[in-house]
C-alpha cells in the first residue's frame, strides 16, 4: 500500500504544479469551452422563431407584474381576491357540513349511546368531546382549505410566485434577509410547517433561520376561520350588509399584510442583534408563464387537502375535544377545572384586552390552531352556565348563524376591543405543535426553536397590551 500512496500523492503534486502553468483563468476557460460547445450544438439542432421573439407574452406580462408602481398593488389585489373567494366560497359548504355532522349525526350518536346505556362520562368524552371537536374542525376548516390550496396551486403552476419573490426581494434585502423568504412566507399562508420545510431553498444558514423564525407571521390555514369569524362578527357587523363581506375580507387582508410587515421588521431586528450578517446574493430565474392545468390541479389539490384536513381533525381535534370535556366537567369544590383557571387568569388577561377563556383556549389549542374558536365558544357557554344554549356544559353546539356566535360572545363580555385583540393575538402567538416540532427537526437547535416559539407570544402580548391601554384611554 505504501507505493500506492506515493503514486497518489505524486498525481496530486503534478496537478498542483501544472495548475500554476495553466493559469488563473482555468475555470473561465473551461466555462467558455462549455458555452462554445453548447452554442454550436444548439445552433445545429434548434430553430428559433424569426417572426417575433419568443416569450413576448411573458415579457409584457412581467413588465406589468414586476413594475415599480403596479407590482405591489397587484399583489395585494390578488391576495384580497384569494381571501374573498375563500370566504365567500366556504360559507355554504361549511353550513352544509355543520348541518350534517353537528345537527344530524351528533344527536343520532347521543340517542344510540342513550339506548345502549353508556355511562355519562364515556358518552361525554367520546361524543360530546372527541366527536364534536372533530366534526367542528371538518365543518369549519375543510371548506376554506379546499378552496385556498387549489387557488394557491394554480398561482404556483402559472408561475406567479417567483415574481412575488422578485418584487419583495429589495425589501427583504434591506432588512438583511433573503428574497426567497417571500416564497417561504407564501407557503406559510397554507401551512406554517410546510413553510418551514420550504426554507431549505435558502442556502445561507443565517438567512434560513430568519425565514424560519418569522414564518409564523404568515397566517396559516388554521387561523383564518378565527380571523374571518371574528372579523365578520365584530367588524363586518358595523357596516351595511351589502359590503359586510368585502369589509371583513379587507380586515383579514390587513391582518395578513400586517403579518408580512412584522416579518420584515423582526428580520431587520434579528439581523442587527442575534443574527448579524450580510444579505447574500440572490439570483432567481423567472420561469416562463405556463398555463395551469386547471381541472387537474383542482382535483389533486382538493383530494390532497381533504385527506390532510381529515387526518388533522382526527389526530389533533379529537384529543383536544376530550380535554375540553374533561376540564369542563371535572370539578373541584363544585367548580370545574376550566372555571377555576378562567377566574384565576381573568384579571391578568384583562390587562391585555383578552379574557381567561381565550387564554385557556389557546393552551388547549397548542396542537392545532383550528380548534381555538370552538374551544372559546364552548368554554364561554360553560363558564356562563347559559341555559337553553347547547346541551349542557362542555358540549359544543350547533349554531344556525354567525349571529348566534355573536350573541354568545357578547354575553360573555366581549367587546370590539376583545375582537381586535383576538385577531392580533391569533396572528402573534406561538406556532402550533407540529410547526414547533418541524422547526426543531430542521434546525436541530433548542435555542432557535425556543426563540421561534416565544418571540411571537411576547410580541403578541406587547401589542395587545399597548393597544388595550391606548384604546381605553381614548374611549374614556
Amino acid at each position: 500500500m505504501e507505493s500506492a500512496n506515493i503514486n497518489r500523492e505524486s498525481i496530486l503534486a503534478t496537478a498542483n504544479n501544472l495548475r500554476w502553468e495553466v493559469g488563473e483563468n482555468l475555470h473561465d476557460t473551461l466555462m467558455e469551452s462549455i458555452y462554445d460547445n453548447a452554442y454550436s450544438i444548439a445552433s445545429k439542432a434548434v430553430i428559433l422563431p424569426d417572426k417575433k421573439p419568443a416569450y413576448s407574452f411573458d415579457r409584457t406580462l412581467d413588465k406589468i407584474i414586476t413594475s415599480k408602481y403596479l407590482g405591489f398593488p397587484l399583489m395585494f389585489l390578488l391576495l384580497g381576491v384569494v381571501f374573498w373567494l375563500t370566504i365567500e366560497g366556504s360559507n355554504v359548504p361549511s353550513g352544509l357540513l355543520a348541518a350534517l355532522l353537528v345537527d344530524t349525526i351528533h344527536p343520532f350518536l347521543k340517542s344510540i349511546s342513550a339506548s345502549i346505556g353508556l355511562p355519562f362520562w364515556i358518552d361525554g368524552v367520546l361524543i360530546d368531546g372527541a366527536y364534536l371537536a372533530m366534526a367542528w374542525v371538518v365543518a369549519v376548516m375543510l371548506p376554506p382549505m379546499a378552496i385556498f390550496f387549489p387557488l394557491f396551486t394554480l398561482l404556483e403552476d402559472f408561475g406567479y410566485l417567483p415574481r412575488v419573490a422578485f418584487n419583495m426581494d429589495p425589501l427583504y434585502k434591506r432588512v438583511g434577509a433573503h428574497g426567497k423568504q417571500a416564497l417561504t412566507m407564501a407557503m406559510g399562508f397554507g401551512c406554517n410547517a410546510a413553510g418551514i420545510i420550504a426554507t431549505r431553498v435558502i442556502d445561507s444558514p443565517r438567512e434560513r433561520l430568519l425565514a424560519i423564525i418569522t414564518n409564523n407571521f404568515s397566517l396559516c390555514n388554521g387561523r383564518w376561520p378565527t380571523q374571518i369569524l371574528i372579523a365578520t362578527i365584530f367588524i363586518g357587523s358595523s357596516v351595511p350588509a351589502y359590503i359586510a363581506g368585502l369589509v371583513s375580507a379587507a380586515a383579514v387582508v390587513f391582518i395578513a399584510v400586517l403579518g408580512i410587515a412584522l416579518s420584515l421588521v423582526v428580520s431587520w431586528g434579528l439581523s442587527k442583534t442575534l443574527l448579524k450578517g450580510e444579505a447574500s446574493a440572490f439570483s432567481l430565474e423567472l420561469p416562463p408563464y405556463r398555463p395551469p392545468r386547471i381541472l387537474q390541479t383542482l382535483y389533486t389539490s382538493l383530494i390532497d387537502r381533504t385527506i390532510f384536513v381529515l387526518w388533522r381533525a382526527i389526530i389533533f381535534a379529537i384529543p383536544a375535544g376530550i380535554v375540553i370535556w374533561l376540564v369542563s366537567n371535572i370539578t373541584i369544590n363544585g367548580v370545574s377545572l376550566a372555571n377555576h383557571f378562567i377566574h384565576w387568569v381573568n384579571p391578568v388577561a384583562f390587562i391585555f384586552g383578552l379574557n381567561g377563556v381565550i387564554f385557556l383556549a389557546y393552551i388547549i389549542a397548542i396542537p392545532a390552531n383550528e380548534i381555538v374558536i370552538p374551544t372559546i365558544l364552548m368554554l364561554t357557554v360553560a363558564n356562563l352556565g347559559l341555559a337553553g344554549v347547547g346541551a349542557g356544559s362542555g358540549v359544543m353546539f350547533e349554531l344556525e348563524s354567525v349571529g348566534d356566535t355573536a350573541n354568545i360572545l357578547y354575553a360573555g363580555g366581549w367587546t370590539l376591543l376583545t375582537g381586535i385583540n383576538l385577531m392580533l393575538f391569533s396572528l402573534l402567538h406561538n406556532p402550533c405543535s407540529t410547526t414547533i416540532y418541524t422547526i426543531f427537526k430542521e434546525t436541530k437547535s433548542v435555542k432557535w426553536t425556543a426563540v421561534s416559539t416565544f418571540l411571537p407570544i411576547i410580541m403578541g402580548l406587547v401589542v395587545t397590551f399597548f393597544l388595550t391601554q391606548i384604546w381605553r384611554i381614548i374611549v374614556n
Partner: protein
Amino acid sequence: MSGLDLNNCSTCPAHNLGNLNKLGINMSNFDFVVALAGNPNTGKSTVFNYLTGLRQHTGNWPGKTVTRAEGGFEYNKKKFKLVDLPGTYSLLSTSTDEEVARDFILFGQPDVTVIVVDATRVERNLNLVLQILEITDRTVVCLNLMDEAKRNEIKIDARVLSKELGVPVIPAAARQGEGMNELLNIIFEVAAGKYICKPHRIKTSSKELNFAVEKISREITKEFPDLPNTRWVALRLLEGDQSIIEAIRSGELGNLKKQNLATVNQS
C-alpha cells in the same frame, strides 16, 4: 502488494451497491438505479411522478424540490430505483445542491442518468448536459416541455441533437404523458447494456490546458487504470476540487470502474 487485496472492492459485483447504500439508497429489491438530473424547473418531478406513480408536489418555480425523492418502477420485469436529484445549472460551483447531484452521479454510479432538458432553453440546458456527459457514459436526454416549445414556435431536431451529443434524445411532454413510453424503453436499453452511448466530449482549444490534462491523465491511468472518466478527473484536479483530491488520496477513486457488463445481469 500481496496477491489478494481484500480492500479492493472494485471486482465485486456488489460494490456499486456499497456506494449506493452509503448514499442512503436502499437497493435491496432493485435491479437498476436511475438518476434524474437537470436544470431547475424543467419538469424533473413531473417525469418522476409519471414514472413512479407517486405524487411529489410540483410547482412552477425553481427550487420546488427540496428533499431528495426516491421511488421505484418496474419495466420489462426489471425493477428500477429512481432518484430525483436537486435541480442544478452546473456541477462546477460549490453550492450544496450541485455537490449532492455531482457526488451522486460520480460516486453512486447510477446505471442510467436521465437529464431532463427544457426544450425552450436548449442551449442553456446543454451546459449541464455536457458536464454530465464528461462524468458518465450512460445518459439519456429527456427533451421535455415540447408542448411549450411548440407554443413558442421553437423547433428542435431531436435526431440531430442526439447525433451531436452521442446519447439518446427523447422528445417529451411529461405533463401530458407524451414520450414517456419511449423514455422508459430507452432507459431499459441503456441500463441493460443494449444501447451503447458514445457521448460527446467537450473540446477545448487552449494548448496549455490540453497539455496539462494529458500529463495528469497519464499519471492517473497508471494508478487507476479502469477509470471511466480520466480526463474529467484530471480537469477537476487542476481546478483543485477538494472531494476529488480526497477520493484520490484515499484510493476511493479506484472503485469507480467502467461499468462491467457482467454486473448488469444481477437480479
